[in-house]
């Protein structure tokens, strides 16, 4: 019973969005538009939930002196600093909020991501093994594409960039498309199950 109302809401919202695609007529069109307006607001509440959770978690860590709790104030300070500068002065260019974004978040975000280059190198050395003919095939096609994407590839042999582009446009596309169609059916089936209340795990607990 505690799930009845949520399931009804899911069903109505799902059906409206499907009909919205096929039926341009009122009232479906207006209800569909309204629903999308509401969606944005409810979805943005989720961000607050996330932030509130973050604060909760770290305050709890400090209170209980959990492992590595000494870093929790750093999280809170970073969070409060962004919040305060944003609320006090706004987000326009050259203001403190934007300054902190450009000078701290941007380089940190970029660095976090660039660590990947090192992990890729390490994976190349340790993990990418030509252990069977299929893995060998994977590596061979990776080699061609890697060479084709940089100027040096064309300098080695003029045809490499052309072959590399062909690999992307023919075998790669065929493989990607097969995965895509299969996955699309997975999405359709799961969406159906959710709309018809067969899939309830997202509401927490099966039955």
């Amino acid at each position, binding site marked *: 019973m505690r799930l009845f109302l*949520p399931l009804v809401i899911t069903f109505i919202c799902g059906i409206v969005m499907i009909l919205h695609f096929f039926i341009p007529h009122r009232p479906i069109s207006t209800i569909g538009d309204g629903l999308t307006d509401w969606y944005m607001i409810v979805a943005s509440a989720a961000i607050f939930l996330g932030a509130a959770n973050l604060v909760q978690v770290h305050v709890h860590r400090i209170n209980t002196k959990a492992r590595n709790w000494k870093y929790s104030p750093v999280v809170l300070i970073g969070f409060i600093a962004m919040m305060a500068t944003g609320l006090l002065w706004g987000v326009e260019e050259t203001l403190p909020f934007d300054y902190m974004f450009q000078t701290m978040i941007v380089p940190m975000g970029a660095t976090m991501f660039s660590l990947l280059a090192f992990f890729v190198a390490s994976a190349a050395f340790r993990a990418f093994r030509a252990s069977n003919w299929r893995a060998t095939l994977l590596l061979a096609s990776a080699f061609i594409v890697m060479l084709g994407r940089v100027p040096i590839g064309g300098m080695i042999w003029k045809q490499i960039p052309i072959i590399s582009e062909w690999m992307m446009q023919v075998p790669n596309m065929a493989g990607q498309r*097969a995965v895509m169609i299969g996955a699309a059916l997975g999405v359709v089936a799961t969406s159906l199950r959710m709309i018809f209340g067969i899939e309830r795990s997202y*509401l927490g607990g099966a039955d």
Partner: protein
Amino acid sequence: MNWEIIGIWLGAVLTLMLYSFLYRDNPFYKFAEHLFVGMSAGYWVIYNIFNVLKPNFWDELTGAGDGSPDYFMIIPGIFGMFMLARLVPKIAGLSRMALAMIVGTGAGLSLVSTLQTNCLSQIEGTIMPLSGVGTMGFIDNLIVVVGVVCGLVYFFFSKPHEGLTGKAAGVGITILMVAFGASFGYTVMARISLLIGQAQFLLFDWLPTMGIHL
């Protein structure tokens, strides 16, 4: 005080702190990691308030935008509150309502859109002739058609991979491996590009502040 140079130093020091993880996990990395988590959460909240909640909800509700209050906005407001109810264990169950709305809308939308874009359009694109397209066209089209069909056979779960099904699935997984290889080759480039970006920052923005020009 030169804010620009301070900014470059801030960025460079934080960058080096994060790179220190490559040596091993250490307090500098942890400090920067936690700072990053906190600051990005703060950024998200601020943008959410200024770019979404204020204009799309508050201004609409109070009529600050175009002068006519839209009282229907109370409904998503209530659902939004439901979402936040998770924070209070006693009424946490209410958040199911909000979740139901998000999931229902998302499911309905993705059902039709995914079917159209990732399924029907792809079928349409695969229905192509093997004749009258020249030798190269014949080979290309044949690879695409066979690849797609055999790839689908690989993802067929109702039959064991034996006999003809097994052979087709074998062809399918082969094409998939070539695709994954291409994908991998392409990806390596992405990863290195990001390192290049940070290296450029350190070499051409940060070093000059110490008088080192490369």
